[in-house]
């Protein structure tokens, strides 16, 4: 099989430019790159058909060996139609991107960014004290194993006396301090305000 060197060189140049262009961030350049790649491939298919200059049509008088192979040309025709449709669709997408975002660039996936920035610590999965998410909360148990069902039960925590259920709330990550006494609450509040000033 003989190959046309000019076609081969052109094909190589088209592939090189096409690959360079699809690596760009601008969508129009990507589209141009894809078109170059498709055309380079068409030339490659054409090259498999052998050297040009042989008889293209069937006639009973021609020797079979002197025909040009018609199949690659049929393949090229199909692939041209397909790349035409894809190019039209890409143009539509590029126009739509321009309408929506006023830019011709490939945009980042927001969810992808969000997942990448998510810390590896997840309070619900990884907290040392598991947050109770059941619909049937376990009853609080005292040190002697008795159920502290009494709503007025108190525990000593941080030098203060708290209601047991409030003490449990403080164990949850992210919950604020709960004060049992309104007076101490306001005092705390003024203290912190004063400190800020």
């Amino acid at each position, binding site marked *: 099989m003989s190959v046309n060197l000019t076609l081969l060189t052109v094909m190589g140049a088209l592939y090189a430019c096409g690959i360079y262009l699809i690596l760009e961030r601008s969508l129009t350049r990507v589209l141009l790159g894809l078109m170059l790649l*498709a055309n380079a491939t068409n030339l490659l298919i054409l090259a498999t058909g052998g050297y040009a200059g042989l008889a293209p049509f069937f006639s009973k008088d021609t020797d079979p060996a002197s025909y040009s192979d018609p199949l690659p040309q049929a393949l090229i025709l199909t692939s041209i139609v397909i790349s035409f449709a894809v190019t039209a*669709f890409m143009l539509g997408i590029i126009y739509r991107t321009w309408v929506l975002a006023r830019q011709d660039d490939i945009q980042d996936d927001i969810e992808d960014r969000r997942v990448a920035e998510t810390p590896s610590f997840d309070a619900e999965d990884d907290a040392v004290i598991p947050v109770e*998410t059941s619909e049937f909360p376990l009853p609080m148990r005292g040190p002697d194993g008795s159920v502290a069902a009494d709503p007025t039960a108190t525990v000593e925590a941080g030098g203060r006396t708290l209601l047991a259920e409030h003490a449990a709330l403080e164990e949850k990550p992210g919950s604020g301090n709960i004060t049992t006494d309104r007076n101490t609450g306001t005092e705390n509040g003024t203290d912190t305000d004063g400190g800020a000033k």
Partner: protein
Amino acid sequence: MNLASLAPLAVVLPILGAALTFVLIRHSRAQRAVSICLLSLTLLLECLLLASVWNGGTSAVNIGGWIPPYGIVLVVDQFSSLMLVVSSAVSLAVLVYATGQGMADGDQDAPVSIFHPTYLILVAGVSNAFLSGDLFNLYVGFEILLTASYVLMTLGGTGPRIRAGVTYVVVSVVSSVLFLIAIAMVYGATGTINMADLAIKLSELDQGTKTLLHVMLLVAFGIKAAVFPLSFWLPDSYPTAPAPVTAVFAGLLTKVGVYAMVRTETLLFPGDSLNTPLMVVALLTMVVGILGALAQSDIKRLLSFTLVSHIGYMVFGLAMSSVAGLAAAVFYVAHHITIQTSLFLVTGLIERRGGSSSVDRLAGLAKLSPLLALLFFVPAMNLAGIPPFSGFLGKLGLMQAGIGLGTPLAYALVIGGVLTSLLTLLAVARVWNRAFWRKAEDAEHPDPVLLAPIPDVERDTATEGGTAVRLLPRTMVGPTLGLVVLGVALTVFAGPLFQVADQSAAAMLDRSAYIQAVLGDGAPVPALALSGGGK
């Protein structure tokens, strides 16, 4: 008349349906009726094809009456007819689901009128790819389904979908160009693109050329099948599409790539020249994919990553190139099409019922809708491979084949497979715990629909923007339930299915039935150069 000569109808009927629905674009009721009828007819026809292949063996249809190596051939063998039946059953269920969604919502979210013709063309492309016995016709089948999928992916033209569509289109076009280059090189090297003819002529080439062509085809198909280093486009682009579209893409499109890889490995380049790299790739696909799934909080993205990961199992079965491995891979493909599609459909329902597809924002769905919990639980456990479901049987088959092979790499893959299965269980269990079992108050920014009192839920409606929207319409729950039942049926009828898979694997590795069906009984079948890989 031989029933198999009706095979072209599997491609023609959906295209006819696409033309009809395109004419009926203003009559949505007629459109629905036509597309569902024609797709059901196609499914029926394909069941007949499967039955005829089961009795009569592989057969080929010459389109336009051209003598085989020159014209286009459609080949019906056990594997392709099984793929046709499963894919059509799944696409019919998704079509009913999508029509149900369209009827429940009206045309606000997406231009539903263009959906039907495009969807039917997608089905035609998938059927064409499964049936074609010719590399270029396979390329055309790929292009038909890809072009239809570009339109479906960007349906509605919203910002996120266009962004995802750009990635998808560019990657697909590049893979198609690679495929076309491979076809040109194959034609240059052998002078034919008929697959049966290639099976004979490729074996006469020298090893270097053969390996080059083999690698090029595998890379082109590997992009479409989302095999590890070439898989990053998939979780980026699938999740933004409408739920039924993602479901059908997840079920069918990657499997067409896997199908093409199977044909390349068994028919065109038998033997085990590239089996070791394929096994490494399979291991990486499984493990990297599932690690990606664990990091996600959006259910659709999570499922997309499990999709990539489980492609690894099929490549594993394929790379063993033994009857047991290939049969397990065939079974796994059929199982995975059904299960992955039903999971995406259920996710669509979860998104409707819970107002979000993020596990951070979902909660308490088990109480709000026990049926939905059941619909999620069964395929999720099936995907993770919990006995007795078909996912377990498929994985068990792969593990047995891997241990039968006995090489260190095969053992590594078996361990990787078990690990992936456990991590899949972890990923779906996280969704299950958070979305279904915790209290609605514990979720971050729960949708108001989750906090609504129960009586409101029982009416199954919520008012959004003044119009009542049915949260779980029967037309959407019905097809999802149907697919879940089909998935369970794959478990119940795993015996006969494994028999089909075994037969098709044996036939594919033997090759003589395929080659002689296409080229006539007198065609010489080159001897296999199988080494220690085959049992």
